[in-house]
């Protein structure tokens, strides 16, 4: 392996490791659920992205093959991370915010957690008093 390849891979690995550690530490240290949501979803995908690029570079510099697996995994992660972040944020908002604090729904519609179908949801029925988790 050339010296240039080694330096590139080592730098990518260190960047990825740093971002991963910041993401995990932010999950523990940040004060309230919304900021805690921000730390891992951004830092962990950047960290994992750097590690995946390092793996691609390893395959290229060591064996001379262009590996597409990492690209697929990174694409999948970048597509799914915002979706999971949105779902978790929505679950948190509807579980622990009061109804007046939620952003207004579309005209003529209601939030699913408060609308007509909410009576069928055992999770919503169990929550008489909305509670904050901060």
């Amino acid at each position, binding site marked *: *392996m050339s010296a240039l390849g080694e*330096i590139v*891979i*080592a*730098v990518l*690995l*260190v960047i*990825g*490791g*740093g971002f*991963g*550690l910041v*993401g*995990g*530490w932010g*999950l*523990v240290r940040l004060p309230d*659920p919304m900021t*805690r*949501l921000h730390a*891992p979803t951004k830092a*962990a*995908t950047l*960290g*994992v992205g750097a*590690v995946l690029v*390092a*793996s691609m570079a*390893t*395959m290229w510099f*060591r*064996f001379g093959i262009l*590996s597409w*697996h*990492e690209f*697929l*995994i990174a694409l*999948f*992660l970048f597509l*799914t991370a915002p*979706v*999971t972040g949105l*779902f*978790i*944020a*929505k*679950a*948190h908002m509807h*579980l*622990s915010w009061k109804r007046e604090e939620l952003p207004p729904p579309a005209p003529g519609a209601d939030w*699913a*957690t408060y609308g007509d179908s909410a009576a069928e*949801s*055992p*999770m*919503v*029925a*169990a929550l008489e008093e909305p509670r904050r*988790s*901060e």
Partner: protein
Amino acid sequence: MSPLLDMALLFAFGCFGLAQLCCLYRVVFAPGLSDRVLALDTMAINMIALLTLFGIREGTAMYFEATMLFAMVGFVSTVAYAKFVLRGDIIE
């Protein structure tokens, strides 16, 4: 594998291992339900990074399938869990 790459790999392994421990702490001592789901999701993402690092160390492409499986199962389980927390039901 050269000493430089060995050290960088060790550093990355240590970082993601520590991040995994932080997430585990958050899973056990979570102030709310959404934090627990978020910590589990982050554990799956860190596991992807650890598997990829192991693949780099071994110099093989064998672990990509496992990584892909972790990515997909992690995503689907997080969405299902968030839906369950929100509605008490997954498929309505």
